[in-house]
């Protein structure tokens, strides 16, 4: 890893340098309305660099990142699995990358075929009647889902349903989505086994409940063992059950959410189907639904008549959630990923993801206690060993010195000092053992030389950063001194 950051773009800028050039204008010029044009005072202060400057700058920046391609990245809940290079090659094919979204449908049959086949794959994998590929990310898939729940109840003339139930282990996007959709979020506690507290849930179930949002396996890495009772409780009061597909990786080929009675669900293609996370997006968050929600799907969706594909907008659609047809480039990668796996390959993903998590848990749980004593799914939540003044954040930072990315920390909120570890199926046994060894070594350091841990990291381009300063005196952009 590179030990220092390059200067900012403007700090190496020199007037007159340039990295791109264009041919002379080959048509007669037309006068540009002068009142609309930037004048000298508004000269655009973009950096002026040579192509080599640009290449060095961004290459050096890249060398200060940890990434799956360089490092084990066990960030819980994010499913940081290997992103196959095949998918990049496919997304770069000219016929896809240079294909315009408003090209005539007759000139777009290749892209439409991909979208249609992916819809079919998603329906089959998760047990749904229909799917829309529109949503751009998991959070937008959630928005689509909750807006569909709203539309469904309104369509039936039921305006009493104003509340949506959410377990306390849920991702923050769930309650934020509920508010954005005009509902009130109601938190349901977890029980001692790490499941939704069924009694507490039943107490909240009345005719004001529009639905439940549930992540299964949940963020503790546990499969809700009474999931069918949970779903019935909500259905019995007229509510719908929304599945948050964040943790689908654990159950590919193991169970289909639709079979369990889940009414609708989003998929995080960037997690389960391995599209690159890109330093925080783009993702893709398609939604699958059962028969009764089909008319409400966000459009357009792709239909097939014989060998011809076309776009179709569902009759009672909640509308459009983004321009054009979803994040096509990501959808294409996911489609490719499913093609090379087939049904057996998908099952192997779940098997290895869950086996890896359980094996890693076994290797460390004597030192890093895990509250729930039952097999985990694709991830588990551990807590740090008892050591004076050494916290989860310190252990996370020290892991960086050992050449590993840290797990997710301080989430889920219901476990104090949480270390949420998700190894994924891509990693081999040796990597898990090396990581476990690093964690055990850090535990020894924490009791023998705690300052080694609390002052970490020391091998990274910067040491611990002052977040309070960043928030109190926000510097959110470069400003030239002149």
């Amino acid at each position, binding site marked *: 890893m590179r030990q220092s950051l390059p200067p900012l773009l403007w700090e190496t800028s020199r007037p007159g340098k340039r990295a791109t050039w264009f041919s002379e204008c080959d048509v007669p010029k037309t006068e540009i309305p002068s009142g609309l044009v930037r004048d000298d005072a508004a000269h655009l*202060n973009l950096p002026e660099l040579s192509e080599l400057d640009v290449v060095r700058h961004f290459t050096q*920046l890249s060398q200060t990142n940890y990434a799956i391609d360089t490092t084990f990245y066990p960030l819980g809940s994010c499913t940081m699995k290997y992103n196959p290079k095949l998918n990049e090659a496919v997304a770069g094919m000219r016929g896809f990358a240079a294909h315009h979204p408003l090209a005539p449908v007759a000139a777009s049959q290749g892209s439409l075929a991909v979208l249609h086949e992916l819809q079919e794959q998603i329906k089959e994998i998760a047990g749904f009647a229909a799917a829309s590929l529109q949503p751009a990310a998991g959070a937008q898939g959630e928005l689509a889902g909750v807006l569909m729940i709203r539309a469904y109840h309104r369509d039936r003339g039921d305006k009493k349903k104003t509340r949506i139930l959410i377990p306390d282990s849920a991702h923050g996007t769930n309650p934020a989505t509920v508010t954005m959709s005009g509902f009130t979020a109601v938190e349901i506690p977890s029980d001692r086994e790490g499941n939704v507290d069924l009694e507490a849930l039943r107490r909240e179930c009345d005719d004001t409940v529009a639905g439940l949002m549930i992540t299964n396996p949940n963020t503790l890495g546990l499969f809700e063992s009474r999931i069918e009772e949970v779903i019935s409780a909500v259905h019995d009061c007229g509510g719908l059950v929304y599945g948050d597909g964040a943790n689908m990786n654990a159950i590919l080929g193991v169970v289909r959410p639709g079979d369990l009675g889940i009414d609708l669900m989003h998929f995080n293609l960037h997690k389960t189907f391995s599209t690159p996370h890109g330093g925080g997006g*783009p993702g893709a968050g398609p939604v699958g639904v059962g028969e009764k929600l089909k008319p409400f799907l966000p459009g357009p969706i792709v239909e097939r008549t014989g060998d011809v594909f076309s776009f179709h907008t569902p009759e009672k659609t909640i509308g459009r959630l983004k321009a054009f047809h979803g994040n096509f480039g990501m959808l294409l990668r996911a489609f490719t990923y499913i093609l090379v796996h087939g049904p057996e390959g998908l099952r192997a993903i779940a098997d290895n993801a869950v*086996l890896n998590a359980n094996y890693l848990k076994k290797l460390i749980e004597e030192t890093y206690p895990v509250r729930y004593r039952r097999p985990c799914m694709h991830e588990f939540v551990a807590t740090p060993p008892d050591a004076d003044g050494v916290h989860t954040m310190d252990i996370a930072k020290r892991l960086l010195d050992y050449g590993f990315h840290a797990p997710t920390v301080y989430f889920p909120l219901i476990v104090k000092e949480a270390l949420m570890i998700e190894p994924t199926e891509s990693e081999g046994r040796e990597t898990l053992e090396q990581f476990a060894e690093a964690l055990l070594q850090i535990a020894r350091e924490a009791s023998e030389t705690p300052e080694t841990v609390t002052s970490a990291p020391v091998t990274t*381009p910067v040491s611990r950063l002052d977040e309070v300063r960043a928030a109190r005196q926000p510097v959110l952009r470069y400003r030239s001194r002149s």
Partner: protein
Amino acid sequence: MAYISNTPDDVRVMLDALGLKSCDQLFADVPERHRFPKIDLKPELSEMEALAVLSEHADRNTPASSLSFLGGGAWNHFIPSVVDALASRGEFTTSYTPYQAEVSQGTLQALFEYQSLIAELTGMDVVNASHYDGATAVAEAALMSVHASRDARKKVVLSRGVHPYCRSVTRAYLDAMDAIVTGDDLDRTPGELAAQCDTQTACLVVQFPDFFGRTFDLDGLAETVHAAGALLVVHVDPIALGLYKDPGSLGADIVTGEGQPLGIPVSFGGPYLGIFACRTPLIRRMPGRLAGETLDSNGRRGFVLTLNTREQHIRREKATSNICTNQGLMALRAAIYLSAMGPTGLREVAELCYHRANYAAHQIAGLPGFTVDFTTPFFKEFVVTCPIEAESLVEGLLPDRILAGVPLSRFEPGRANDLLVSVTEMNPKTSIDTFIEALSRVASVNGKEQGAR
């Protein structure tokens, strides 16, 4: 199995350590009657087979070339080779949201630089680390305007010149807020729309250049909107800002934009880049992630995600938006693109678009039966009224691999003969001339057929 590192031996060692006989036993919590269903998908393909299948699909499309005149919210612009070369580095593509800032400085500094570049381009104070696309950025800007009035103002005035998809996404987002979206029933000038702003209005949203390509002068618009106590949102094509005045200097409060032209392939509609910028007083209401500069414990400059208390992972149901991931990799592409273009390159691209679009428009206007409305100046797109239905015209040129433009009937009922034509630096004079010749041919053939009836 594809992409799995464990060997059968590894699996056995691990199962032994867990005291298990098979992986099936790991799933005992799953209800038995639904456990291990049959998944009816095609058997796995090898990498070689998959490439063949996908190439076949790709070949069934007609991708953009110098003979493509499609625009309407996604445009064919030149992407310098450095953009793909740098943005495809695994250190960028296979990292995630910079939760551990010390090992994510590359992503964070690039986001900070993206924010700075877009701030310069738009003339705004603050830029977030991006939205899903231009349409969702417009929708969130409208939502933010409503929230900035503490939900006291629930009317959003939208210009019909705002892309129809941006308008429908805004409606979908605002529906749950019981807000009113108005103004776009007719084609009105920005001045006429500003006059509709009243004490109930949260914001006016206009687009520059507008959906039809027109460049209305926005000078003085902000004053009228502000006098009504509303905010001015300007949705931009960032390429145009290489040439035209920035919306910041014209008094805009929020600037959104479709960032796709900044080094991002059209890729059948996504992933794109939602640009979102605002003035300092609005920061705390801003949705999305923000990278900020700070110091490390040794006093060196470094970058972190900051002002997180606006966001869903902290505020949960009280967050400014549910947005979680941004379009990090697309923001990186835009940063590389703008670094490579510099002020001169970007202006040259914008001028090439302008002159070639105007040349094409005048040539088309000279063809019998075709008209172009020159009343309002335009940038790189313009509307052609054709002698036949635009859909048939587009279809007629397809065998020559000419993508003639976007028939407006897809968005605007009653405008069957209108075609939105886009001309960029990717369409040299020779291609434009080929296009003009093809247009005259189709029109004359069709004219004769109609005459014969």
